[in-house]
């Protein structure tokens, strides 16, 4: 490798130039980037981590473009088609093969035993169309857009007196109000995929400031802050989560609840991070290069920015990535109990609520899909975190 690899991450460029005249001509900026680039190289070699990264990329793409990708809105219901099984996407029927996939119209009716049943009319083809017009929504929050990725021909009008047929494509089945589970998964991704990022950032702010102050100031402040953190860690986390949730009224609008859940999860989560940050700050504070920097007259903010932060950054990034699943699971836990995101807003957690009823689970097992999404997402974050840990480990950089 061409880049100098032996100096610590935080070495100021001037020192490098004087120590290593062979590289004196190269621009200093390139050299500061080099540890980052090497980490990236190491990360790329970590195949599972790269798979995790791709999966996360896809999930974020789905979350951002849910309005475009999902065939139906999250609250677009069809009460006649409740708990419809996954729709068959067909290429062939009695009249032959078609390159353009199609579905058959569905209806629900009441049979001679007074049970509600659903069936499809196999004689009618409803073709799949791409880039169809749908409800107006704001793409990326700003661009007004009416297009959805795909849709289907409308069902023919019912003959007078006959049952009404619907043109509905349920890739993964429908839920209790006949809403498309696939579409709701896409919209639900917005909650799960963002709650981890926002929650971790908030915890980082708490953890870094409290841990940093604790480690840097020391003394009584340190003692009080640490004991307070220990006290929070002493309470059983899940029960504390529930208790904090019960401070607030049961029915709130989804946006307030979303931020409330984040706040609660961060309140529970900061002590662990603060403790580790404090440990790192106290140990770094007594390092020779910090003394050297101080002796050289560097102001505190410069020391923190150029010496302390780069040394803790790797660890912070890794632990932040690995803590994201905790937020996703925390939100799902609250939502599955009916204490989190409220209907009709979909979250992977509240979509699983019905799965807790064994008879529902028995009759329409497709309610389990959101759980699979949670598993996939948590797994992806764990894989990426693991890859980052290897890639950002300073000891690894020398290899």
């Amino acid at each position, binding site marked *: 490798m061409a880049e100098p690899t032996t100096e610590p991450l935080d070495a100021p460029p001037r020192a490098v130039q004087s120590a290593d005249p062979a590289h004196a001509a190269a621009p200093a900026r390139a050299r500061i980037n080099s540890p980052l680039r090497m980490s990236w190289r190491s990360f790329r070699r970590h195949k599972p981590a790269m798979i995790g990264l791709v999966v996360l990329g896809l999930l974020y793409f789905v979350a951002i473009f849910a309005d475009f990708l999902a065939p139906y809105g999250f609250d677009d219901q069809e009460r006649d088609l409740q708990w419809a099984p996954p729709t068959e996407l067909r290429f062939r029927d009695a009249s032959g093969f078609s390159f353009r996939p199609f579905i058959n119209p569905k209806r629900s009716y009441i049979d001679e035993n007074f049970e509600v049943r659903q069936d499809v009319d196999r004689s009618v083809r409803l073709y799949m169309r791409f880039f169809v017009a749908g409800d107006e929504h704001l793409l990326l929050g700003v661009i007004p857009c009416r297009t959805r990725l795909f849709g289907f021909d409308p069902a023919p009008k019912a003959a007078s007196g006959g049952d009404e047929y619907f043109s509905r494509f349920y890739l993964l089945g429908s839920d209790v109000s006949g809403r498309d589970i696939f579409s709701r998964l896409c919209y639900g991704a917005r909650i799960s995929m963002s709650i981890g990022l926002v929650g971790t950032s908030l915890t980082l702010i708490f953890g870094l400031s409290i841990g940093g102050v604790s480690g840097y100031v020391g003394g009584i402040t340190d003692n009080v802050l640490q004991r307070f953190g220990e006290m929070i860690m*002493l309470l059983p986390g*899940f029960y*504390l989560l529930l*208790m904090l949730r*019960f401070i607030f009224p049961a029915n709130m609008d989804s946006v307030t609840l979303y931020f409330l859940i984040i706040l609660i999860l961060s309140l529970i989560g900061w002590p662990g991070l603060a403790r580790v940050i404090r440990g790192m700050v106290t140990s770094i504070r007594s390092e020779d290069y910090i003394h050297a920097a101080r002796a050289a007259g560097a102001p505190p903010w410069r020391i923190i920015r150029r010496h302390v932060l780069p040394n803790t950054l790797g660890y912070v990034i890794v632990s932040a990535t690995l803590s994201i699943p905790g937020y996703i699971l925390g939100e799902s836990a609250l939502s599955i109990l009916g204490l989190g995101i409220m209907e009709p807003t979909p979250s992977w957690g509240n979509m699983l609520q019905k799965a807790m009823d064994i008879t529902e689970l028995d009759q329409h097992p497709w309610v389990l899909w959101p759980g699979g999404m949670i598993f996939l997402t948590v797994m992806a974050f764990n894989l990426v975190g*693991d890859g980052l840990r290897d890639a950002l480990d300073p000891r690894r950089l020398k290899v």
Partner: protein
Amino acid sequence: MTSYIIRRLLFGVVLIFLATVVSFTVLKASPGQAGAAELDPRLSREYIEEQRKVFGLDQHPVRQYLNWLGVSKLLGIEPRGGILQGSLGLSISYKQPVATIIYSRLGATLLLNLIALTLTWAIAIPLGTYAAVHQHRWPDKLLSALSFAGMSMPGFFMALVMLWLLASKVHWLPPGRLTSLDHDQMTVWGKLADYAVHLVIPVVVLTFGALAGLQRITRGNMLETLRLQYVTTARAKGLSERRVIYKHALRNAVNPLITLLGFEFAGLFGGAALLEIVINYPGMGQLILEALRAKDQALVMAAFLIGAVTLVVGNLIADILLAAVDPRVSYG
């Protein structure tokens, strides 16, 4: 060592005290009547007021906390004892002593967690060792993939999938709970078998989740130990590979793990709460969720107290075990 333990215990008591203050404050901050009495239209206003008096809920919150703690009894201003007198108080929704209510629920929770803990350790250590000895070969890779799955699998989701596959598709296992409806008519062996089949799903879920971490740690420790010089020495002496691994390396690799047992102890109480709720298991999880919903003050406080005590004791056990197995560690 003794003085260290005493110091830690005293410190722990202070922490537990503060933790109960915090939980009491949070509990008092939540809206609604204790026992959720206002939600029951059958109860008259007078009855609710009377109940509040009986349970001492009409008093100032500070006084209520002191009542709960048992300080009021010491001061002679309250006939009923509190924690200091060994009483957990009365539950307003069950109208029974908290200890009676918690007794069976705590038993069920501990039963589940202890079985899962034992299984986890019995499986994880051999697996971790095996993976370390076969590093970079397919058993190691398979185990590491499984570990990732185990770490990432939400327990409640795995439980639901198992319920769907094993309890509703093929009727091999019962759908949740701890006992069948006809449990009381069963023979002793029948009852035991009944418990056993009900425990399969939660135990498997808990074990699968915990296994992942422990297996990876065992593997890591074992790999590090196998690189040490005394292992090379043992090999150079001509000892069989089996003896080197199981007699020399394994012991030293597992020693540091023993401290983890202390932390596991702390998780016995609340670790499986959500899982319990999801599969309708009659443990602490459901009890506390309902108690929080109903603002059953005494019950909630008891749960947080037990949780905090298990954590303090667990951490202490971890430290003591560490000193016991590692002669290099000593507490002045």
